[in-house]
């Protein structure tokens, strides 16, 4: 066959003939490179499964108003995770498909199941469902495990200070169980703030670990005064931390709990001279009552109904509910994972109108510049148009 002009000219270059010959040979003898399917998807699935298909294998009470739900995989495989990570569980409740992120509280050293803990919250649309309706054999889809609230061995101290509030104990349970199960060379002090002993999750287990393992110290701190309680009483503040954990400055501190507690502990630690790099915080969803957030427009009650236009369709949106919630109520499918402003999966473009942004959104500069929002923490304060 006559050579093309390209081949003819390439042949005149130094090394030209030799390379052309190489290519000719490779075309004949090398193996086929196109394989059916997407190789990357297949290889990555054992580490990061796109969608987890879970089944409830047991439900057990823990404390007064909380349950541990054990989830196993319908196909028998669960991806590994780092202690402290969460899964985002999807549920259809009263015809509305929504989701909630739950920290995994079981140890990552076994993956026959993931356990999550659900605690009752006031007007908790999803927590009521999880506590009152969910039973063995129920199935869920979920995404994750995800999240960066975890021990990072490259630069975190081997000595940790865990500050937990209420159901914020759950990621710490996974971390502790791993340390204890695997006998890791780490040392932990946990200060766990709760209203009363009945509300303290895993109190017995934690007390047991503390009694048996010299590398774990546990203080339950009750905010309500209780008769017969001789332990710590009050809040997790600077004075208490300094007294109970004199070597606090050599530790990496981790905070997980309600937003108020989370913010308070952070400012206490900063006040004690702990640098930001040693304060790791679990992200949090927006406050249940967003109107209490600093900067909320004073003329709005959270009950106003605005028109939310999305790709040409008009739906109702309440000012006190996030755009994501409004979309879910209307049956619009939006990608979502952390529901805390961090992961950016639920990002939408604001075309017109005004929104209120809750605290703790990790936005990219380009998103700010081009009008993109994390819908999970954005609230309509006028009629709004968005683009998915």
């Amino acid at each position, binding site marked *: 066959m*006559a050579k093309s002009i390209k081949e003819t000219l390439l042949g005149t270059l130094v090394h030209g003939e030799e390379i052309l010959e190489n290519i000719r040979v490779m075309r004949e003898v090398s193996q086929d490179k*196109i394989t059916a399917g997407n190789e990357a998807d297949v290889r990555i699935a054992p580490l990061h499964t796109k969608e987890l298909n879970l089944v409830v294998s047991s439900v057990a009470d823990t404390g007064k108003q909380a349950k541990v739900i054990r989830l196993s995989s319908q196909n028998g495989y669960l991806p*590994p995770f780092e202690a402290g990570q969460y899964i985002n569980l999807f549920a259809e409740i009263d015809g509305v498909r929504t989701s909630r992120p739950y920290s995994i509280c079981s140890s990552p050293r076994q993956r026959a199941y993931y356990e999550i803990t659900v605690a009752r919250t006031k007007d908790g649309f999803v927590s009521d469902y999880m506590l009152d309706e969910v039973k063995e054999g129920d199935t869920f889809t979920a995404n994750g495990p995800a999240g960066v609230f975890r021990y990072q061995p*490259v630069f975190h101290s081997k000595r940790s200070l865990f500050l937990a509030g209420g159901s914020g104990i759950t990621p710490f349970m996974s971390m502790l169980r791993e340390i204890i199960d695997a006998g890791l060379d780490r040392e932990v002090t946990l200060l766990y703030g709760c209203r009363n002993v009945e509300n303290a999750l895993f109190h017995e287990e934690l007390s047991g670990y503390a009694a048996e393992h010299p590398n774990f110290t546990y203080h339950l701190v009750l905010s309500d005064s209780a008769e017969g309680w001789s332990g710590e009483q009050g809040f997790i503040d600077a004075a208490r931390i300094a007294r109970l954990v004199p070597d606090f400055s050599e530790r990496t501190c981790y905070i997980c709990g309600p937003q108020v507690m989370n913010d308070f502990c952070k400012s206490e630690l900063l006040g004690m001279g702990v640098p930001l790099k040693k304060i790791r915080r679990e992200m949090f969803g927006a406050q249940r009552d967003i109107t209490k957030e600093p900067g909320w427009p004073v003329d709005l009650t959270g009950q106003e109904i605005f028109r939310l236009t999305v790709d040409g369709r008009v739906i109702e949106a309440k000012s006190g509910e996030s755009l994501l919630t409004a979309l879910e109520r209307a049956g619009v499918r939006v990608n979502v994972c952390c529901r805390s402003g961090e992961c950016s*999966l639920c990002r939408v473009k604001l075309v017109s109108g005004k929104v209120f942004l809750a605290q703790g959104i990790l936005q990219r*500069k380009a998103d700010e510049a081009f009008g993109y929002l994390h819908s999970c923490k954005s609230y309509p304060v006028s009629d709004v148009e968005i683009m998915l």
Partner: protein
Amino acid sequence: MQQYDAIVIGAGNGGLACAATLAEKGKKVILFEKHNIPGGCGTSFRRGRFEFEVALHQLSSMGTPEKPGPLRELFRRYGIENQIEWIEIKELFRVNFPDGTGISIPADRKNCEAFLCSQFPQEKESILRYFETVYAFCSESAAFAEKSAQSTGEPSAAKKAIMKMGFPKMYPTLARYALKSTQEVLDEFFKDVKLQLALSAYWCFMGMPPARFPWSILAKCTNIYMEDKPFYLRGTSMMMNQAIMDAVQRMGGVVHLNRGVERIVLEGGAAVGVVDEKGEEYRASKIISNISPLATYGALLQPEEVPQAAQEYLRPYTIGISALTCFIGLDCTPEEIGFATSFTLNYESFDANEDFKDAYKLLPEKDPLVATCYTVDDPEISPPGTSIITAGTLKYSAEWEKLTPEQYYEKKYEAGKRIVARLEKMYPGFTDHIEEMEVATPLTHMRYLNHPGGAIYGYEQDVMSSVFFFPAESKIPNLEFASGWVNACGFGPNYLFADKVATKIALEV
């Protein structure tokens, strides 16, 4: 069923530019992106107080507003030049040697020549001759490209014979150097190994060690960066992605994020449309794939639809290298820790080709370490008193793919520790300043890019697979490719290539 002039699959750099150019030319275009953000390989992510750039080091072909390079001209056409704050980078890079010395290369030919001559006086003549050769090579290849763009079709046998005779005389530098490796050319010019390493640092932008890195790419990089200057921009590469995406929409194009293409529809062996992941079908005269040819044929077509010619055509090409990268936020300024040049290449020995072999191993050992301190270029990239550094090595994914899921996290952090230890040695006190840190392995790149092998530069860019041999041809009528897999990868080259592809398509649809 919706009808378009063109459908673009994937909103990476190539896909964005294709869609923008087609929209600019009044074509009805729709762009699908599986991910929730545009940008493909070039995006950013947030941790704590920091936003990390994941890909862009130095934007090429920008030039100044007065003397615009081709990329600035393209951004002008898209109407986005002034939406972005461009930051000129003053030094090309710094190469650090194991003996503690280092060489910083100025982004200007005359200064660079003068500086290198003062450092290596015994090689003065070679240095001047080298730069003459680099520039002659680039002007000859530009002249040849212009000439071949004018010709259409195959010339007659007689004309071919004349051209064959004439070519080496008309383009002597091209004929002599176009297919040589970087090492071969550097050995021809220089004796001092430090000088060789100082001039070849851009090999790491293409992931091929000097012995396999086409010198023609190095020559082009050197020439383009010195003439048009390297640039960074305020707000990470996400700013460009979003600006181009906005431009597509402003000019009437449609962009769907969070919506992948499930398959390409063929009729009579030709591409006529796509089906998206929601099952909706779209039709168009041209389908432009900005994902790898492997995934285009393998995942978007049925096995029996893949032409044998495509198999044969792609057989010589090997999936390229990935990377192991640490994204680090420090609670101190670059000066405090000793970063003065944004982009550094750090060697553990004087044999780059030997050290590069460690890229095939699981963990970083002697691998040349690339470290970029973005704060040097853009002090506003993170809050006052902090800095952002990404540091890592090129790595093949093979060993990482062999790990069991149970081993993965431990190895990932072990790799991170080794890279931080290297940085600590060069910048004492480094570790104590870490406020945020994320480790990305070849598998992380595989996860987010969806590329086989976690490849960050597409196919291996060696002499026989790149420049004159990029696998840009499609073996299916009405299907075209635009990504870095089929052309020089990187931001500037990919935008410009995709613009060229789209300009040609605009004439046909």
